[in-house]
């Protein structure tokens, strides 16, 4: 059941330049799965719309969620000033999440680029229980990394950096090929060019790839039709060739979407 709920910031810190991590105590945590997101509200009446932020982690007791975000504008800049104890309003839990059960007994490859890395962490945790093997390729601009050590607890991690200062120089596909990984299934989140690259890499090889998409959102619950993505087939809900990222996504089978 979706709801608008209040939570309390437990901990907030900068984990890399302009990248913040915030743990929020909220009962939304009970239903939170990797790849799903929440809409975080500012308390500023001039910036009204909820900011979609992925669930990066859920604590073991399912009483708190962790969000990791980059300062991208006014809303996220305000969030970065939040301190422990602050009350925040959230809409959630939103979206479908990664179909992690599909990786049961398989070699799963998790791919994350930049601020697309956070949802990969909770997914890696989940998969470490059910997948045969979990590998992870993550891309950063440079050696100023974040969440890397945490991911290493759950997966074999390979890094790509744009400037070559760590791991493979290049993007996540370069790192995937460099390390001769042979996944059965891919899960990815990151910037559009990366997702496009993964779609084009996976499809000819017949490898299933689930990619998490981003779009400007208003309602977050499927009512406004603001957040659509073009689909290959006519969508079951809209009856045209597009689908709502906030409700039918953000995670899609790469073969179903035209990106």
């Amino acid at each position, binding site marked *: *059941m*979706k*709801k*608008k709920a209040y939570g309390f910031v437990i901990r907030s810190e900068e984990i890399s330049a302009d990248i913040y991590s915030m743990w929020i105590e909220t009962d939304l945590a009970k239903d939170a799965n990797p790849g799903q997101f929440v809409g975080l*509200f500012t308390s500023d*009446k*001039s*910036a*009204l*719309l*909820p900011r979609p932020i992925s669930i990066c982690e859920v604590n073991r007791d399912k009483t708190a969620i962790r969000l990791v975000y980059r300062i991208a504008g006014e809303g996220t800049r305000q969030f970065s000033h939040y301190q422990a104890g602050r009350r925040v309003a959230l*809409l959630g839990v939103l979206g479908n999440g990664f179909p992690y059960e599909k990786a049961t007994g398989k070699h799963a490859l998790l791919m994350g680029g930049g601020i697309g890395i956070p949802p990969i962490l909770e997914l890696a945790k989940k998969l470490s229980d059910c997948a045969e093997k979990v590998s992870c390729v993550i891309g950063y601009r440079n050696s100023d990394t974040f969440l890397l050590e945490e991911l290493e607890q759950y997966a074999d991690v390979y890094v790509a950096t744009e400037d070559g200062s760590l791991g493979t120089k290049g993007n996540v596909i370069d790192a995937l090929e460099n390390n001769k990984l042979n996944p059965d299934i891919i899960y990815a989140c990151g910037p559009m060019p990366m997702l496009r690259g993964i779609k084009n890499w996976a499809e000819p090889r017949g490898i299933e790839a689930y990619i998490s998409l981003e*779009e*400007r*959102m*208003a*309602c*977050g*619950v*499927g*009512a*406004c*039709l*603001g*957040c*659509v*993505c073009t689909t290959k087939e006519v969508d079951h*809900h*809209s*009856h*045209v*060739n*597009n689908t709502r990222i906030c*409700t039918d996504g953000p995670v899609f089978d790469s073969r179903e979407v035209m990106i």
Partner: protein
Amino acid sequence: MAKTSVNIAGVEFKNPVVTASGTFGSGMEYGEFVDLNRLGGVVTKGVANVPWPGNPTPRIAEVYGGMLNAIGLQNPGVDVFIERDLEFLKDYDTNVIVNVCGKSVSDYLEVVERLNDKNVDMMEINISCPNVKEGAIAFGQKAESVFDITKRIKDIAKKPVIMKLSPNVTDITEMARAAEAGGADAISLINTITGMKIDINRRKFVLANKTGGMSGPAIKPVAVRMVYQCANAVKIPIIGMGGIANAEDAIEFMMAGATAVAAGAMNFVNPYLTEELVDGIEAFLDKNKIEDIHEIIGCVK
């Protein structure tokens, strides 16, 4: 407890709170947050004779105290709408008001014809959407065309007709009078105000459509003024909307002359808004010992 029911063109509303078209789907999504049975009515997303894919993205931009949208009236077409959305709504004890859009007069007439014998309480004709190239707003910006399309729809409609007016005109009372003269049973206003946002770092429009319709609290004073002007220009009832965020806002619209009010963009911020309006209006009436909501409709002259 105060009497909150109102009557528009012979249709009884248990309270004056309805949803603004396009912000509430057909109620399915917000049914998770509010009890649709408690609302005076559900106004659906605009529906055309055939499916429309809408505009490219980005379709949404936030602006100070509101937002811009350029959805482009994406809709599944009237056939799917009848089979799915009307079927869903028929189980609720609330009025069903179907918002109708089109690119030509015959598009509108076709939808009205299809809805005539269906489980629909009223039809709201959108002649004011700023986000599609053809039709829509073009019908709503000249008094003669407002009169003409209203009359042609009224000639065939078997349900009461609400004409939804655009604020993107010099004198909205002219459009209100033209709709009344054409036989409209009611008018609703305001639709969104055409706006624009530019990303100065990328030197690009934020919306793929360049322009979008502005809604939210920032437009409320304009909307209240227009409702007031129209209430003094025509005798048919008015459904008022534009930035309603709480019961106080809704009461302001009613005092300006609206018989009913619609919650729009603020549903996105507070998904419980519609029910809170119902409760808040009631509480206001009780607190001020007002027995019947009609005492406040148009009470500020």
